């Protein structure tokens, strides 16, 4: 460790202003702070600080994503072998995991390489520090993709999300929309057939590998939204709520297992990185909306138990990892509750009412991202009004 520190101190002058590689200052600084906690001291104001800076916070979020990622890799293999009817391989955990690992790793690499290259280029050209925000976004993007998505689409979507979603607003911390969801939304609207329907959720299915008879590859949500169109009872494809909770269903890579996501949620809440208010209120919003639809009960989809919605699709993943993004969510405590409730409610509303969009989570979070500053504004204004009133009574 000491040797590394000495080496960095030795080469540091080269990257200072006027040094040999002065132009690469921000790149150097990014790597230095990545290796060592920066020794900056507070010059004014509050003098208490801990070693927690943005890089450390981001790493905790990435850690929290690991259970979902590992399960996602396993599930990719499992679903693939089930689809081709290879029951022996489907029973072997390591074989499933290894298959999924090889499928998922390229997506992660592409997302990180493209995103970080753009981040570094922008930081360099603007003379800013390189921001750490992409460490998380780069991991979130693969987890919300279907496994069969072409890699070049991931690259284009990542570039779009980082440039249009983040850099034009001024970089990390200034973005209005969650970059990872923006990447997904980009593919969703630009290359719709590659991210929706029945064929994309299982590796190899879209290229037509041998499929067992009677196997569709549709996610439970697709089946559910189809029942709205056909007017028949929902065909859950032989899966039960316990499968949805554990995650043995087709879906985007990281979203299927509610259990793995809840482990991540526990890490985030224990370390205080994510807001429990948002998480709880998203789930509450979805559940309440589900109950409301139960009351209406106009078709089979409206009548499903409300907790089904929380287990299906990307609801849990969105609630835990996407909605809680501290940059794009509401900042006030009351605002966070309103923001969360609305996300859950709108997600379920889109799912049930609009069969064109089987999964409403992405759109509902992006929509509420746009409204978050407005919610904060009214919460703050209401507070000011209340205090003014109290002031005038006291007089």
């Amino acid at each position, binding site marked *: 460790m000491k040797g590394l520190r000495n080496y960095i101190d030795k080469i540091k002058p080269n990257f200072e202003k006027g040094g040999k590689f002065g132009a690469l200052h921000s790149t150097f600084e990014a790597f230095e702070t990545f290796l060592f906690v920066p020794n900056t001291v507070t010059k004014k104001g509050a003098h208490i600080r801990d070693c927690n800076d943005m890089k450390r916070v981001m790493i905790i979020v990435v850690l929290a994503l690991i259970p979902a990622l590992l399960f996602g890799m396993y599930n990719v293999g499992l679903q693939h072998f089930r689809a081709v009817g290879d029951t022996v391989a489907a029973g072997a955990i390591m074989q499933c995991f290894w298959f999924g690992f090889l499928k998922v790793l390229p997506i992660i690499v592409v997302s990180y390489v493209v995103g970080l290259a753009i981040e570094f280029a922008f930081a360099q050209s603007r003379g800013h520090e390189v921001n750490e925000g992409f460490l998380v976004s780069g991991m979130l993007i693969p987890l919300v993709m279907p496994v069969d998505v*072409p890699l*070049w*689409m991931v690259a284009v979507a990542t570039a779009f999300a980082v440039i*249009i979603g983040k850099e*034009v607003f001024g970089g990390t911390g200034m973005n209005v929309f969650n970059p990872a969801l923006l990447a997904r939304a*980009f593919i969703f*609207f*630009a*290359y*719709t*057939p*590659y991210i929706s329907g029945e064929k994309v959720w299982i590796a190899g299915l879209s290229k037509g590998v041998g499929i067992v008879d009677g196997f569709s590859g549709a996610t439970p949500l697709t089946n559910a939204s189809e029942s709205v169109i056909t007017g028949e009872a929902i065909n859950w494809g032989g899966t039960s709520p316990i499968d949805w909770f554990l995650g043995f269903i087709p879906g985007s890579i990281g979203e299927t297992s509610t259990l793995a996501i809840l482990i991540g949620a526990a890490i985030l809440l224990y370390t205080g990185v994510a807001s429990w208010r948002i998480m709880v209120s998203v789930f509450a919003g979805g559940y309440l909306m589900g109950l409301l639809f139960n009351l209406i009960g106009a078709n089979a989809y409206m009548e499903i138990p409300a907790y089904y919605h929380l287990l299906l699709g990307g609801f849990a993943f969105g609630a835990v990892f996407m909605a809680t993004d501290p940059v794009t969510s509401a900042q006030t405590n009351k605002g966070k509750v309103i923001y969360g409730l609305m996300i859950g409610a709108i997600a379920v509303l889109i799912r049930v009412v609009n069969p064109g969009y089987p999964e409403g989570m992405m759109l509902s979070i992006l929509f509420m991202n746009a409204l978050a500053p407005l919610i904060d504004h009214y919460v703050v204004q209401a507070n000011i009004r209340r205090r003014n009133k109290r002031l005038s009574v006291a007089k």
Partner: protein
Amino acid sequence: MSSKEKEPLFSAKNIKLLTSPFSQSNPVIVQILGICSALAVTAKMKPAFVMAISVTVVTAFSNLIMSLLRKTIPSRIRIIVQLVVIAALVILVDQVLKAYVYDVSKQLSVFVGLIITNCIIMGRVEAFALGNKPWPSFLDGIGNGAGYGIILIIISFFRELLGSGTLWGYQVIPDWCYQHGYSNNSLMLLPPMALIIVGLIIWIHRSYNKNLIDK
């Protein structure tokens, strides 16, 4: 009049009227006018080009006519007179389009009629033609129409190329690209992407013209 030298038709000042709308005072990317139609008609190059020509014609002639009439119109009713002139010109353009390029006219649908509401035309009449002589007003109209048109054509170039893989209706992205997994970007065909392209054009334009950046 005899003492004053007659200004040549294409004096430096008049040339500037014609050329400055291309960049320094571009109606779309600097004055942010006419965005609505720039989003609506730019999915393909052909309609965008026809739209650009139509708007140029209407702007030029409404400027010319209003400039000729400018001393006879009481200022209280000038807006309604402007509308009558612009509407008459738009109807003329619409009829010509229907007669000669019927399919494009059908694609443009209501947006030909909506040229009336294009802020550029009203804006130039109000801001320029009512206070200037006919010939400079005419040039100003041509310049602004063309400045609007050039942005339309840039936007539609990217939208058609990336959204449909064609240019002017001819396929330019070869089939083997599609066979190797390339896919058209259907987001390009939706109006929001046109807005993003306008934003990107503004970004590039501002980085070359730092004097236009708001402080």
